[in-house]
């Protein structure tokens, strides 16, 4: 600890604290431009100069650490004059076109000049103009360099946090311009973090351009609806139209960053095709109806059907309150155990995944994982799927020296921060982790006498495992060496484990061995739907009740429900926010299966394929149109607030569930609460892990940028459950013949699921799917980027443009999930998690 005297007041701070931070801690504000929490200090703008006793020159407080006994002044006449001087210099060559600048009203330069600036301008020379017209840098970024204050926050965020490093300075001195390479169009992540960090109106959102002034916007705190990273953001609207989403420094684990989906993908909310009124099927056609007509219709239809013959499916992008109420309605009101929250994952696999990734022991902060000695990123295309976790890992590893190992089939951006990148075979992650566990075990056998579950090593051979993984023994040795020399090891459990269930058991084995070796093991689930973890914790799974308790009666999962529908085993389905017909997750045609049902009730925001064949469709609301909570992949429970009403007669799902429940029963098991806080209080009781969670902190701006609000992490679940044993875990791969390829799938940077395709901006960034394959494979097939290829599976084929990928394993092709017109899931016939396809030039 160091004692410092700031403006005469003594305080005590940690050694190495920057003067700026020490002052802020003591409640003394020092103005800054180039300083940005989480970026490396540069000390270039000279706005934050302070006086240090005994030093002749003023010193930049943003890069100068305190020393014990230092006496610092921040408001002397000399300092005030220096600040004025710097501001006058900024303004000398500044465009001063505030009236037409999108930043006007929330500009740091405006605010700073207002507060500290000179009253009069003395600059009488001609101004340097970098360009006449604003220029477009990307479909989402427009640039005006004439307003630049050269703080380099844009360049640094792109390099240090985003990891793209596509911005830099052109020119020198006063001609220095932060932009793309020779101002060309950016080929980048289009995340817009450069826009967010720019203190002035240089980097601007193209879709928001000239649409509003900040003071005309009304905003609310909400959570990104895409992946399960759980980024906090503010969505802002004007006259009922959502215009902008932004992140705030010091709020949420993401602080000021978002990815392209989060920052630009909110605009689905304005889609004119949204459902605005209940629809009821009359004479084979869906017709608009009033709520009471619709509810009466539902009551009449559903009350005649036995509970067990009803299936329930709810989307993992619903709030905890909605999911909780839905499972209560299904289980108590309707008396049906058939409930699931995904069209993709097998519930038995999910249960094993939950157990192996220790989700029952409560939340794990992503910061703890990133600060481990080694972070093993596996089972996820992290940089594309959960970009902000990629940012956090990159930033913290550079700052603290976390060793990152990336194990994946395809290359990813995080490779550049990883000391070791392993490209394993598709489906080979389980074998790789087993090989690592085996090798650690064998080298430390004497120390591991009595290792519980040693039988799990029986019959394992390193050579065979390495062959399955497609990894060399040198690479394996490099991995185990890093594990051996680490006291804490963080392992990510990505969604590939849900696709390739073998990996789940291997993850358990590896984590057990590491623990037996005395290491602290942290497992961080990486999920791709905003409230997937919440859905599981709320008991929207056929085998689990809220709080990870074993359900009193095990019901059917999504696939089984569709199969049951096809076979006449169920009569009705209640679907909220999912589209089993469009996504067709089963071997049988979901359309054919659902056609056999006597009643289909759908709650959605759009008329999906499933909604189109339903008997009744109820219009729902998106996040930003409702209150509620999400639980992110870490187990962080965060609240969001309603910004505006949903369009027309649409209602929040929670209100709809309550109404449906109300007409179905007036007695037992009612879940008619429409206030999400009341429901959350009930959740606190039903799922004790949520009992102590604080929602308060989440919405409070946190000045010191301490992003890790641990009060929001869920606690450990009581009791715990035993997952249904997975019957087999042989890699469900077909044999790959000559000229054939393994097919893998997943999200892209711009699209994850149905929602993103309703966003005009995201569709503008990436419209169609492409087939990705390695350069070597492409050249063997005579294909080059942009050309079309035909991909043939057992009973599905599709033609796609080709994109070459440098770091892809040979013999593997990738097609993204959930793209309109490409039913990649149809390559995955039941039981095959790794299909083999033929590729031809078309």
């Amino acid at each position, binding site marked *: 600890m160091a004692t410092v005297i700031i403006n005469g007041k003594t305080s005590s701070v940690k050694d190495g604290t920057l003067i700026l931070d020490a002052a802020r801690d003591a409640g003394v504000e020092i103005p800054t431009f180039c300083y940005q929490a989480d970026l490396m200090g540069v000390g270039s703008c000279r706005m934050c100069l302070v006086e240090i006793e005994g030093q002749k020159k003023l010193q930049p407080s943003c890069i100068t650490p305190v020393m014990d006994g230092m006496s610092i002044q921040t408001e002397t006449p000399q300092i005030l004059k220096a600040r004025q001087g710097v501001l006058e210099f900024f303004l000398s060559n500044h465009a001063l076109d505030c009236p037409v600048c999108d930043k006007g009203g929330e500009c740091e330069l405006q605010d700073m000049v207002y507060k500290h600036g000179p009253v009069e301008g003395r600059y009488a020379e001609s101004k340097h103009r970098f360009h006449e017209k604003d220029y477009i840098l990307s479909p989402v970024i427009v640039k005006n360099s004439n307003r630049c204050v050269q703080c380099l926050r844009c360049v640094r965020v792109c390099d240090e946090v985003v990891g793209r490093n596509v911005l830099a300075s052109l020119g020198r001195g*006063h001609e220095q311009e932060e932009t793309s390479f020779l101002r060309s169009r950016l080929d980048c992540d289009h995340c817009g973090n450069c826009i967010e960090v720019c203190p002035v109106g240089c980097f601007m959102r193209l879709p928001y351009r000239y649409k509003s002034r900040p003071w005309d916007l009304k905003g609310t705190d909400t959570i990104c609806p895409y992946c399960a990273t759980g980024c906090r953001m503010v969505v802002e609207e004007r006259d009922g139209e959502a215009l902008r989403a932004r992140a705030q420094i010091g709020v949420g684990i993401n602080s000021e960053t978002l990815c392209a989906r989060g920052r630009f993908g909110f605009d689905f909310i304005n889609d004119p095709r949204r459902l605005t009124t209940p629809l009821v099927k009359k004479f084979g056609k869906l017709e608009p109806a009033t709520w009471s007509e619709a509810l009466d219709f539902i009551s009449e239809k559903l009350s005649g059907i036995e509970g067990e013959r009803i299936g329930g499916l709810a989307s993992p992008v619903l709030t905890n309150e909605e999911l909780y109420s839905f499972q209560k309605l299904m289980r108590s009101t309707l008396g049906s155990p058939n409930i699931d929250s995904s069209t993709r994952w097998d519930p038995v696999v999910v249960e094993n995944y939950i157990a192996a990734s220790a989700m029952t022991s409560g939340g794990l902060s992503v910061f703890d994982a990133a600060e481990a000695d080694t972070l093993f990123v596996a089972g996820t295309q992290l940089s594309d799927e959960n970009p902000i976790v990629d940012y956090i890992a990159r930033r913290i590893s550079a700052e603290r020296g976390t060793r990152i190992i990336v194990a994946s089939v395809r290359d990813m951006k995080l490779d550049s921060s990883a000391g070791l990148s392993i490209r394993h075979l598709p489906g080979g992650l389980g074998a790789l982790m087993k090989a690592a566990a085996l090798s650690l075990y064998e080298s430390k056998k004497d120390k591991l006498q009595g290792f519980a579950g040693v039988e799990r090593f029986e019959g394992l051979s390193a050579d065979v495992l390495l062959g399955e993984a497609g990894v060399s023994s040198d690479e394996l040795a490099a991995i185990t060496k890093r594990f051996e020399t680490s006291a804490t090891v963080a392992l990510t459990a990505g969604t590939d484990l849900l696709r390739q269930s073998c990996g789940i058991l291997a993850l358990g084995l590896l984590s057990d061995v590491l623990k037996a070796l005395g290491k602290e093991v942290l497992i961080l689930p990486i999920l791709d739907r905003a409230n997937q973890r919440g859905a599981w914790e709320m008991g929207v799974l056929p085998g689990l009740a809220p709080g990870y308790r074993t359900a009193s009666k095990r019901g059917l999962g999504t696939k089984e429900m569709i199969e049951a529908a096809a076979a006449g085993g169920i009569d009705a389905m209640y679907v909220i926010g999912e589209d089993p017909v469009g996504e067709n997750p089963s071997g049988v045609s979901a359309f054919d299966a659902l056609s056999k049902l006597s009643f289909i009730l759908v709650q959605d925001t759009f008329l999906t394929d499933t909604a189109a064949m339903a008997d009744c469709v109820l219009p729902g609301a998106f996040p930003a149109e409702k209150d509620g909570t999400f639980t992110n992949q870490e187990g962080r429970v965060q609240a969001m607030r309603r910004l505006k009403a949903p369009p027309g007669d649409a209602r929040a799902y929670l209100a709809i569930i309550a109404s449906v429940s109300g007409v179905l029963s007036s007695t037992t098991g009612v879940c008619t609460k429409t206030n999400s806080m009341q429901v959350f209080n009930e959740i606190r009781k039903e799922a004790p892990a949520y009992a102590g969670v604080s929602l308060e902190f989440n919405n409070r701006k946190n000045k010191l940028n301490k992003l890790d609000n641990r009060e929001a992490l869920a606690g450990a679940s009581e009791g715990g459950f035993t997952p249904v044993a997975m019957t087999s875990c042989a890699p469900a791969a077909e044999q790959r013949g000559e000229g054939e390829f393994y097919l893998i799938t997943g999200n892209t940077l711009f699209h994850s699921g149905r929602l993103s395709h309703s966003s005009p901006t995201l569709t503008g960034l990436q419209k169609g799917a492409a087939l990705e394959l390695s350069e070597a494979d492409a050249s063997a097939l005579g294909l080059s980027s942009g050309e079309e290829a035909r991909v043939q599976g057992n009973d599905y084929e599709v033609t796609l443009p080709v994109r070459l990928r440098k770091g892809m394993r040979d013999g593997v092709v990738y097609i993204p999930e959930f793209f309109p017109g490409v039913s990649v899931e149809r390559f995955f016939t039941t039981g095959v998690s790794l299909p083999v396809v033929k590729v031809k030039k078309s």
Partner: protein
Amino acid sequence: MEKILLKNIDKPESHKIESYIKNGGYNAVREALKLGPDDIIQRVKDSGIRGRGGAGFPTGLKWSFIPKDPTLDKYLCCNADEGEPGTFKDRAIMDNDPHLLLEGMMITSYAIGAAVGYIYIRGEFEFGAKRLEAAIDEAYREGYLGKNIFGSEFSLDMYVHRGAGAYICGEETALLESLEGGRGQPRKKPPFPALAGLYGKPTVINNVETLACVPAIIEKGVEWFKSTGTEKSPGPKIFGVSGHVKKPGLYELPMGTTLRELIYEHCGGMRSDKPLKAVIPGGVSAPLLVPEDLDTTMDFEAMGAKGTMLGSGAVIVMEEGTCMVKVAYITNRFFSHESCGKCTPCREGTIWITKILKRLEEDRGRPGDIDLLEELCGNIFGRTFCPLGDGAVMALRGAITHFRDEFLNHAAHKGCTA
């Protein structure tokens, strides 16, 4: 005085290794290799030599900051950027006596434990870069560079790296940044290069002339070195004189030679009958001196006491009739053109000042311009990230102090009264 720096430059084929050896070259390094590294550092410390690149930092002390840990990689960087206007001394050594520099670098590398040395040479010195590369090739051929030099344990590789034309890359941390392939802008200090320099490793950066003095310190001894120059600024110094003198050029003289002796004895006096008006004593960052100051000695202390600096020893002599506003304008135009753009006061301030000076020079000044100039100087000085901005301001302040009337006349549209 016996010359040590310019002794070879006029000899035939002076750049060739044979010529260098014939004139006694590469003896110092053989001798040095027999001494321990610490012993060499001590001798250089004892010699009292101060860096010839401008700041005059004691060379031995700088070397002694390098950690002794043998597992750490260390680097030597020779600063051959020679960008300060008026300065052309390092170039003479590199063009005509490159092996003197190589020998100095070999001894220095051995002393600080560096296995790699870089010569960062300004981009425009194409000829010098070729000469150095040829010299390095010769040295490798003779086994003077590479593995186990002169049969010792000491190995050294050496590379020439050409800059891309930026004055700021002469500033040591910008030099490192540029050498690493980055944008030439200064780094924050601390950490100082001696602890975290090139690629984050301990690094010594020395000027060409500084390194060229090292062989003589070893060979002729500390006492010999201290016998020339002043007590606090010992040794010989190359003065590069340009401007309105009869014989501009390079002069190797003891530190502490007076300006008068330099101009009137060595350079043969003023070129015409116009008397001396002003002298810039150490490159354009150094505030100018006037005829009353002619008896000041050319060393770090005396120059500092006069409010100016010895700098690189580049002396620019100006006769009566030279327009000081124009001199100030041209100087500042240089600084604003060379401002790297990192920090606000230098980036925005120097160009503003240049624009005002241009107006003044063209007789388009405004009332209050001189006060404004002085205020802008105040807003730059001491507020910049590196000394470039300070240098620009110091030079201008000096000119205004001594020739205020000339500036005021320009401002009042009275034309040039120089």
